[in-house]
């Protein structure tokens, strides 16, 4: 196998990184959970970094197995009056609106 040098580093995910990912993914984590996640993610990334053994500079990324272009459809309304259905499963609604905690002071 040819080792691709620019990827030949070993990442280590620290608590600061976990905090950052937690913020990006909007999942709150306390210290205990962050420590557990850091351990898990490090062992998973150690496993994932096997890919660095492969040289892929001249490989085109695969974005879809189907290899067809997505079909375009006409811009026409096919289902109407879905307001009630759409709002039906909302945890909190007010007539025709979703309700969220106050955003503007």
């Amino acid at each position, binding site marked *: 196998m040819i080792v691709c040098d620019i990827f030949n580093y070993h990442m280590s995910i620290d608590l600061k990184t976990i905090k950052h*990912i937690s913020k*990006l993914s909007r999942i709150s984590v306390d210290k205990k959970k962050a420590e557990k*996640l850091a351990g898990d*993610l490090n062992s*998973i990334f150690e496993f*994932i970094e096997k890919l660095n053994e492969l040289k892929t500079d001249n490989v085109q990324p695969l974005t879809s197995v*189907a290899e*067809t272009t997505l079909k375009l459809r006409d811009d026409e309304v096919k289902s109407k009056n879905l307001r009630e259905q759409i709002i039906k*499963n909302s945890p909190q609604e007010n007539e025709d609106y979703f309700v969220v905690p*106050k955003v503007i002071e």
Partner: protein
Amino acid sequence: MSDITKQSLSELIKNIKDKKLSSTEVTKAFVERSEKSKELNAYVTEDFSAAIDKAKKFDENPNLDLKLPGIPMAVKDLFCTKNVKTTAGSKILNNFTPTYESTVTQNIWNEGAILLGKLNCDEFAMGSSNETSFFGCVQNPIDKNLVPGGSSGGSSSAVAAQLTPITIGTDTGGSIRQPASFTGIVGLKPTYGSCSRYGIVAFASSLDQAGPMAQNVRDCALLHEVISSYDEKDSTSIDFKRNNYVKELTNNIKGKKIGIPKEYRVDGMPKEIEDLWMKGIDYVKDCGAEIIDISLPHTNYALPTYYIVAPAEASSNLARYDGVKYGFRADGENLIDMYEKTRSEGFGAEVQRRIMIGTYVLSSGYYDAYYLKAQKVRKLIKNDFDEAYKKVDAILTPSTPSSAFKIGEKTNDPVSMYLNDIFTVPVNLAGLPGISIPAGHDAKGYPLGLQIIGKAFDEQNLLNIAYAMEEKINFKNKITDWWIK
């Protein structure tokens, strides 16, 4: 008829068509057995009384020309069913009742089948043992405290235990084939684009496919025929000519070329798996097929690729669970606090772990090193198969590197859990069809499966090879009904 639930789907259909059995009799039999089997925890939602009502209605004016006339069927709880709760095995969807029906389940009801209920699964289909479900793990009917596989673990358990004559699961990295192998049943993952993804709770959109899980290959072919359809509501659904899979089913596979990939002989594979594979080779030879050694050189890179691509897509798909539009909401001091608490309390540990991995590999500065790299390796993996299919018609491998394991055995080590899917994951990455058929037992008497991988859209050939092998193998599942008091 006392042993209705022991009959295969094809037998039940024949008996209903010959008017030897009514839909009501059949439905009541499966309801009764399901009621007695609560210890398996296969169901998340039971819809039994509605099912019996529907069966009675069917019997009043039976349309016997349908493909599934009055047949009761439970389905994985990842398919949206109109007015019946759909949870995806998650707390975050515990109060979600869809106002619409998935295309795949609609196809099934259009052919006369009747919903029995919704079957347990790993949370958002993320797992290989059904232990990540918010609704608890499922028992494998083969033995107490044995996992049924996952993510379609409620589905595999329910078919093996005869709580439903047949079912549908979904397969993103092996979630139909691995549980089928662990419970001694047949499971087909169709070609990507063959069955519509509309109305299936999304996990990793470029990999997810729905497929049948059945007691035998013929039943599997029949359900595949019903669910496979072009659907304009799924932008990746493919418009190709589908076969009459049952009518064209044949055990004549003389002259077919079957590839044996040397890279699937992995380190530490138990001898009984190796032996099973060799026996499988003998079976196909007995059927008149030709064995050809092939190489799929990037096999070892499939799992690491999968654990970038699937979490990346999942982190994006699961962004929709924000406590606003549907599902569980936790109270928060402000909007952001509400989002963070909702997702922290609503998702289980494995789902959070995968969202975190996915978010990280897509985040600024890491995208090229991880996600783009994985997409490139995915291309190499697909090229391996394209190259192999110049020489062979199908590929034979074991379905899993071991038989079913005990509940709790692998929960503390995510990587060892992920290794379960080593033989199934490459198939999803390449978008190919794969089928697992029961092929033998290990020393403990637990079932073992063999996997056949086909060319894209070549499900007919795949089913034919499985059908021919099934006849030679003559597998009998060893189920004692230990859970029925």
